[in-house]
């Protein structure tokens, strides 16, 4: 059975079915969306027993010629790097769907675009052919444009087009780099096959690899987002509806880091090494500067958005270390950042839905009134600031561990970012939950069942991965060791 195709395209089937349902039948539309996202989730989980932790080879491979005259294949497969991200995607999609149940406007279109978006995201992580990868990569843009632009906040339209143009600019350069790789490939015919291309890197000169790397990097860095290409992120995050912020933070940003590891590193190793000194500087800037910017925010959502900049900096830091620990940390950090920041956005959405403001200073003492909310928010914030025992710590620490071997000074400076992260999260908690209760919010209800359903699983995973990170780590260890071993 073609599991990966099932996982990837089940939501597409759902999207097409939704198109056929009259738009008044909102319940049916939601049900279909859940059904097909659920199929995807279950199918991806069903791969878990069959997924071998002991090999670095691609698994569940599907391959047939797609555009033979151009050497393009339909080539899907997962390994320890991509499989955890596939799981993250299917899981977070279902969570975000729960978070989407509050959508009341143009329900049909919303779920249609949502499912299309999920197809794109899953495809990116499964594709092993560069063109296929690029197609899926771009496929995420259009749904995202609509999801932000129709269902977003006050400046949604500007945010949507900025997101689109910005990321598209990056990805077209990536396309050029992909084409350059194609023409550099040797053998009976040119190929877009990532695995084949990775074997040929030895024959390419350094100059070429640097150019290719830069092209690829431009696309990836905007997605990550790495300084100075990060400024679309706060805007997009702030304007997007809650569930879409969740997806944006949890999955979309991961595509950039994944691309760096899967493509930039594998296909232009010399370029990658050439770029490392710059990458480490960018990582440090992302961490420290992102945290500082977050500190200056009064809007909770924007603060969380900047914290994403900060957290993706850890991923870059881990990658820049060029050590297995760093890579492991980066991948693990992707997972945990997805879960934690997803939860954070959901939680910010909860308060926004009630109070219609996200201004940190508008609240005060809410812990008395909303104990469950306060507890979950605190847990998530502490997880996000890297408190040991919660998921954020392991990834962050491994990133540092990996980077420190190569970049002692940079890693040491980055540690300051941890402090700054703690500072802004603590301040937010202090202003919102602690202190004197602001009587304005006297009739704020605590969390509803639907909200709990979407957030509690994330909180549980946060704790679980914090105290027992073995499961996700075991999935990726062998693959990452092999990546650096060659």
């Amino acid at each position, binding site marked *: 059975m073609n599991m990966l195709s099932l996982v990837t395209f089940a939501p597409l089937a759902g999207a097409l079915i939704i198109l056929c349902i009259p738009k008044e039948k909102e319940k049916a539309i939601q049900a279909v969306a859940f059904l097909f996202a659920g199929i995807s989730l279950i199918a991806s989980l069903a791969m878990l027993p069959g997924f071998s932790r002991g090999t670095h080879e691609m698994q569940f491979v599907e391959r047939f010629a797609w555009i033979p005259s151009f050497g393009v294949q339909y080539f899907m497969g997962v390994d320890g790097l991509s499989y955890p991200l596939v799981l993250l995607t299917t899981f977070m999609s279902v969570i975000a769907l729960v978070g989407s149940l509050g959508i009341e406007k143009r329900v049909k279109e919303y779920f249609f675009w949502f499912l299309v978006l999920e197809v794109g995201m899953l495809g990116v992580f499964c594709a092993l052919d560069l063109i296929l990868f690029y197609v899926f990569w771009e496929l995420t843009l259009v749904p995202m444009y609509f999801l932000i632009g129709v269902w977003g906040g006050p400046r949604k339209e500007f945010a949507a087009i900025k997101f689109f143009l910005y990321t598209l600019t990056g990805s077209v350069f990536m396309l050029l780099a992909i084409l350059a790789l194609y023409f550099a490939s040797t053998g009976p015919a040119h190929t877009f096959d990532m695995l084949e291309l990775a074997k040929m890197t030895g024959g390419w000169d350094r100059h070429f690899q640097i150019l290719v790397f830069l092209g690829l990097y431009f696309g990836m860095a905007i997605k990550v987002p790495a300084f100075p*290409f990060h400024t679309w992120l706060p805007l997009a995050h702030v304007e997007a509806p809650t569930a879409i912020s969740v997806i944006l933070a949890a999955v979309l940003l991961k595509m950039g880091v994944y691309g760096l590891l899967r493509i930039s590193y594998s296909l232009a190793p010399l370029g990658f090494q050439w770029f490392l000194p710059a990458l480490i500087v960018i990582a440090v800037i992302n961490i420290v500067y992102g945290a500082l910017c977050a500190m200056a925010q009064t809007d909770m959502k924007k603060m969380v958005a900047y914290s994403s900049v900060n957290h993706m900096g850890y991923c870059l830091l881990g990658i820049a270390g060029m*050590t297995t620990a760093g890579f492991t940390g980066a991948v693990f950090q992707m997972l945990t950042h997805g879960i934690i920041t997803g939860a954070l956005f959901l939680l910010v959405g909860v308060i926004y839905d009630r109070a219609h403001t996200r201004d940190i200073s508008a609240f005060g003492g809410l812990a008395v009134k909303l104990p469950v909310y306060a507890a979950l928010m605190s847990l998530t914030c502490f997880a996000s600031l890297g*408190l040991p025992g919660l998921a954020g710590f392991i990834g962050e620490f491994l990133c540092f561990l990996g980077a420190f071997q190569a970049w002692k000074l940079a890693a040491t400076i980055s540690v300051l970012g941890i402090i700054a992260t703690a500072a802004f999260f603590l301040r937010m908690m202090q202003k919102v939950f*602690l202190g004197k209760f602001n009587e304005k919010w006297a009739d704020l209800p605590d969390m509803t069942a639907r909200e709990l359903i979407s957030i509690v699983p994330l909180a549980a995973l946060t704790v679980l991965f914090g105290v027992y990170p073995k499961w996700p780590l075991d999935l990726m260890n062998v693959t990452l*060791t092999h990546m650096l071993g060659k």
Partner: protein
Amino acid sequence: MIEHAYLIPLIPLAASALMHFGAKEDPHSPAPWIGVVAMAICLGMSLSILSAVASGSVAVPYEHNWPWFSFAASIGGKSFIYDMPVGVLIDGPAAVLLVVVTLVSLMVQIYSIAYMHDDTRYMRYFGFVSFFTASMLGLVVSSNLLVGFMSWELMGLASYLLIGFWFEKDGPTEAQKKAFMTTKLGDSGLYVALLFLFAKVGSFQLTQIHHFYDKGYMPAAAAAAIAIGLLFGAMGKSAQFPLFIWLPDAMEGPTPGSALIHAATMVAAGIFLVSRTYFCFLAAPQVMHAAAWIGCATAFLAAAMALVSYDIKRVLAFSTVSQLGFMMCALGVGGYTAGLFHLTTHAFFKALLFLGAGSVIHSVHTNDLRLMGGLSKKMIVSFFTILAAIAAISGIPFTSGYYSKDMILANIWHSGDRPLFFIMLFTALMTAFYMSRLFILAFWGEARDHEKHHHAHESPFLMTGPLVLLAFLALTSGFMLDRHGLVYKLLPKPTISVMPGEVAREHAPPATLVSATMPAEGGEHAAAPSEAKAEEHAPAHEAAAEHGEHHEGHLPHALHLALPFLVLGSIGFAFFLYKGPDYAAAESLKATFAPVFTVLDRRWYLDDAFDLLVVFCDKVAALAFWIDANVVDRVFVDGWGLLMRIVSEISNLIDALFVDRTVDGFGGLSLDLGVGLRGLVKDGQVQEYLMYVAIAFSLAATLILTR
């Protein structure tokens, strides 16, 4: 029993979870007893472990590890899967600390049942205390530095929760943030040290790291860096200068919680960390010396602040800081045993002091010493127990403090650093002075505020019981431990047989081999031979160390004899100044040295500096965001807009040459080029179109032909 040591942190953790999630808020709920019982069990286990260790019936260090998780790592370019274990490592100091922590925590919890009875979040409080204790116990037993670090950080969280327990008020919320942030600042040092250690050793296991150091594989520079990092971490948690600013503010939490923080958990953690990684410091003598001076500065500065404060809890807090300075100083001069000895004794008498102070505050509803006075008549148990504690902390002969402080001073004396010694000696006398002052103001003489005095009453048994027990320990623990050199047996100073740099680098085995060849499990087998080997290799060192310990145990005879009299003199001076209802002598002295008092009152301006730092950070953050919104976004978002602008300027220029047209600037998404190009057809003049064609082709043709 020792094989079940892993349960010691887990039981309170489970109790905490149970109390958090399993019980409803209810002042009459018996649920707090869950925590008490859990702690009692832990205390029992700890005592049995301690006795086993003391009697030598189990071999120490005892280590046992379980696999936890694995991750891919690489050291020196070689990749391997590192199996991170989680485990326990019990040695003498750990065994002692277990008893201290569980005992103090037990006392605090029993005491709190009465003390916190009326609070709305009664249950939550006990949950926090158990959680706090569990984190500390985790640090104590952990065989693995990373797990230790995790416990360490969780302790930070616990302190955050406990200090901010009354979060409706602004004071506690500020204090909790300050505590968390300041210790976090220190933790960053520890963080870097951990990274450095792993980068060098390829393991987080204490025994393996010790082995690595023992063989002299660690380069001197790295050793110094690691030691600095560890020291920095300890400075944050153990409130050393200049990071001690959080501790006085931490008073905002419930008083029994403060007792826990000051006696058994937070502040002890830093000292314990230094002792746990003492070999790292031994390999970096300069850092040790710096640690001694930091301890000294801390001790002196804090004691000086304690001289002038009228807030009973603050005086105690400053005294804690000061005493921690003593411990750090002791560790810094090589007085390992003395430092830990003082940690132990201090735990008892400081817990006692806080609980006693809590009892007093509970009774008179104020923290202000000036409003107390004459309480000895009303609160007889509190009076005597606090008297015992003050005797101990002041170093009255044969109380516990006398032994431990004596040993510290002896160690400092033997380090040969005379300025250090005399400052510390002076600080010891200041200790006696301010504690006596506190005592006199609170209990002696006549009541100054008769209303409060009238309401004052003795606390219930649940509160006085722990006081009595702790008073007993404050008086006797020093004597008990000092007898027969038990303290040296329980708290032996670690050694390293080869100093860094004595082994050529190339002889060092690849670091990965260290972790690869040393199985994570059965660490006790691996550790033991290394210990044995160390002895084998350096018997001379060992003998010298042995000799030194005994020698360092004593001050020169004259000093040793003079010390009690100096202390008594200091106490007498306090009586002289603060006798009488309006302590006129003290007030006149204060008037004479007003500037000094102001400086002390302002706490050496360190808090102001901290506030400035906070403001500065806010400014930096605001600046960063401004840059982001106004520079980065402009330049990079509309990123290539810059390029477009240039192109457009050029096209503009060409345009102007022929048709004299200006292009308006255009905001938004840098549509300048578009504007310029659009200008070409602005008027819809067909002959203008033709003109452009003619221009283009005449130029092109001419260029091609005249090439």
